[in-house]
């Protein structure tokens, strides 16, 4: 394999398995064997990479205070203030958690781990107004994101964030709540059409008693668990949650469902069913080892076929992280990152529903595309952005509280905000080899094949810096 060939392949690999790559790293890695590069991507991190922003002890204390306040019939002014303060701190912490993860994606040395976390974040989509729960779920998705799918699934199912979001806290013997049981099969494992309504009922009974206690620790409440006999996919027994998960994983449809979703996320919006089948068999035979699945995918020849290179629309997270990573961007007002996510349609930790973000062409409409194409000049050239975005529905209570008689009820009057970010241009330019031409830089920054028009547009460019801003502002840069 020649070096030029490998250069292109590693670049593609890092665009999909990570968030892009610097020119200097790419040069280094393309001298290695491709299988070795894939192996290195799959390696465990040298040090623990869990996000520890939210202080667990403090959060648990707050949780207990809040529970006590909620139990009271009447609150005095002091207590009302206390409750408001807790809500305020939670909201602030939730925003900080979002930014901490974005920063981790921007700075990580193990990009595939973060990319997998992003994948599972959309697959096990969940909203929690408790930042401790949200952080915990995110860490589960990172820690097990390349491990055993069974462990991942069990841990996610036991997390207070998911138990709360899908109402398993209300799933009790004699009064089953089927929400979790339904989504477990429809969205997390088997996919629609591979189970019956009866299977959902029996599965819901089996998960009764899977709850979390008042400080947010998983607990199996035996007295609320339905001990009766259940019939699930033709098997009869006194099943408990984990038995159900085992039976679900025993079905090859689960491996196929996950493989197809992985394929759509990492390879192409339109799955090639033969390739999906290949992945699914491998995944199933490896006993649901996610690393094995990803290794198979990244080492398959078809992954590097032209129809799979430079043809996927970047998600807003991929777009923002990729741009920030490539140009070493510092955000002086990190909240702008939340504003951008929300305006572009992917506010992390706030998926539209349990089905996650639909992805693909649904990322793009006239306003989100225009904004995407303006962001590079705003972020890299520190511009002003006249884009206030919509309020998140969950923030309505805060909006209602903070509103006074004189303020306007609309986002129209929000002051203009400045992106207030800096790219580290010297550092970026340092990653480039000496004598690199604008055309070569363009070839490096864009994943789709260059055409005459782009070639012509950059040919009259003198500086690499202005070339970079222009190129990242093009429709082609939206693809990876």
């Amino acid at each position, binding site marked *: 394999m020649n070096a030029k060939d490998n250069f292109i392949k590693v670049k593609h690999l890092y665009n999909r398995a990570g968030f892009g790559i610097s020119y200097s790293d790419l040069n280094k890695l393309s001298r290695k064997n491709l299988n070795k590069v894939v192996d290195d991507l799959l390696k465990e991190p040298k040090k623990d990479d869990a996000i520890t922003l939210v202080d667990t002890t403090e959060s648990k204390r707050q949780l207990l205070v809040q529970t006590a306040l909620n139990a009271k019939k*009447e*609150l005095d002014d002091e207590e009302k203030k206390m409750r408001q303060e807790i809500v305020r701190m939670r909201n602030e912490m939730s925003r900080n958690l979002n930014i901490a993860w974005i920063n981790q994606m921007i700075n990580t040395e193990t990009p595939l781990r973060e990319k997998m976390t992003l994948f599972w974040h959309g697959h096990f989509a969940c909203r929690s107004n408790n930042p401790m729960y949200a952080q915990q779920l995110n860490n589960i998705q990172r820690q097990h994101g390349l491990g055993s799918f069974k462990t991942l699934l069990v841990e996610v199912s036991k997390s207070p964030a998911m138990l709360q979001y899908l109402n398993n806290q209300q799933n009790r013997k004699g009064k089953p709540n089927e929400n979790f049981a339904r989504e477990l099969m429809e969205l997390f494992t088997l996919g629609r059409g591979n189970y019956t309504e009866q299977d959902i009922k029996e599965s819901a009974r089996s998960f009764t008693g899977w709850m979390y206690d008042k400080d947010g620790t998983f607990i199996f409440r035996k007295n609320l668990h339905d001990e009766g006999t259940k019939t699930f996919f033709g098997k009869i027994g006194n099943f408990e949650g984990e038995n159900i998960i085992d039976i679900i994983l025993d079905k090859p449809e689960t491996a196929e469902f996950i493989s197809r979703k992985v394929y759509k996320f990492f390879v192409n919006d339109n799955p090639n069913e033969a390739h999906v089948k290949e992945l699914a068999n491998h995944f199933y035979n490896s006993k649901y080892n996610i690393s094995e699945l990803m290794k198979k995918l990244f080492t398959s020849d078809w992954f590097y076929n032209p129809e799979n290179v430079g043809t996927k629309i970047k998600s807003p997270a991929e777009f923002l992280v990729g741009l920030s990573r490539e140009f070493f961007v510092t955000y002086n007002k990190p909240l702008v990152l939340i504003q951008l996510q929300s305006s572009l349609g992917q506010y992390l930790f706030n998926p539209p529903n349990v089905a996650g973000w639909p992805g693909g062409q649904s990322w*793009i409409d006239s306003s989100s595309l225009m904004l995407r194409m303006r962001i590079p000049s705003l972020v890299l050239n520190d511009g002003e952005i006249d884009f206030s975005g919509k*309020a998140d529905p969950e923030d309505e*209570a805060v909006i209602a509280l903070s509103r006074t008689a004189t303020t306007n009820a609309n986002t129209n009057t929000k002051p203009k905000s400045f992106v207030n970010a800096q790219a580290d241009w010297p550092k970026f330019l340092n990653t480039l080899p000496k004598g690199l031409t604008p055309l070569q830089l363009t070839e490096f920054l864009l994943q789709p094949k260059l055409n005459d028009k782009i070639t012509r*547009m950059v040919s009259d460019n003198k500086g690499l810096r202005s070339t970079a801003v222009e190129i990242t502002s093009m429709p082609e840069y939206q*693809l990876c």
Partner: protein
Amino acid sequence: MNRRNFLRNTGFVAAGSLFVPAFMKPLEAMALDELSLYKNLVVVQLSGGNDGLNTVIPFGNDIYYQKRKNIAIKPEEVIKLNDMQGLNPNMKALQEIYDQGWMTIINDVGYPNPDRSHFRSMDIWQSGSDSNQFLSTGWIGRYLDSNCQTCKFPYTAIEVDDSLSLAMKGQTKKGIALKDPAALFRNTNDPFFKAVLQSDKEHLDEDNLGYLYKTMIETQSSASYIQNTSKIYQSKSTYPQSGFANQLKTVSKFISSGLKTRVYYVSLSGFDTHVNQINQQGNLLKQYSEGMAAFLKDLKTNNKLEDTLVITFSEFGRRVEQNASNGTDHGTANNMFIFGGRLKKQGIFNAAPNLSDLDTGDLKYQLDFRQVYGTILDKWLDVNNADILNKKFNTLDFI
């Protein structure tokens, strides 16, 4: 290219002739079948879950006063519409509208197995899904997808906002979000973007890159069309000073200048009144009512009220009983408002909420919100509602 101009707003640049393939020729050049009667729909979203029971007050029902000791509106303050229901006093501006026969109130609109999460319930209302179904397209978006005679333009649906709501997103077609037509026009006519779009034929196939270019060309073309059609129009009506009224003023400008857009979408947020709701909700209802009254009168002056239907919804109502903080918590069924110059059934459409027959403290719904959508799709937007809503919903006779 002149780099100094790159991605800066350069003021007005004459819209040059774009070279694009025939199948995507500029919309402004398309021959349009002028429709003598061009019907518009304006959707007004109240975000946060507006408390319907303190909006349209069941003052004739004692249970209302028993359950809401601190926040009930006193009977003498209510703007009475009949013996049972009346408007919140902050909605005074709408009294004249109501008396003119331009307003219909539909009580208890909801859906089976209601969800009390703002996000999820808004998702359900915007997508028109069942409560256990996840759709990634909106009801207006699917109307655009249906490619009917009158909805084929990229500017068929406009949201007066910075970003596009799910309601406006279809599988293949989407509405356009803009707050200020002049700003969008300037942005899309940036010399750099124009250069990007110049003489580009090779990308315009059906793949993702083609889709990006198609979206960009349509945006630029729509921005030019909207700006050029609406810029000369000057409204003579006065609107109150509020962001919401400004959104409506923009919609009126579009409608009155003859834009061939069919659906407009605006929203007003802040209705999640868990604490001390009286003043907060009062202020919002005042803003809403004054904005709406100005808008409807403006349309009337311009002879557009007959061709316009305005609907207002919120993702859910609140619980019947107030909470301990003089506010209300998330509930279920809620009222919807319909406005227009050609309403078939004016005033109060159906029975007032039954406060003695509740579902664990919540109102039971009388009508599915998709019956309201279905009625509008069938009778106003001229499509078959089953094609858009995935199953047939019985229509109502308010239009």
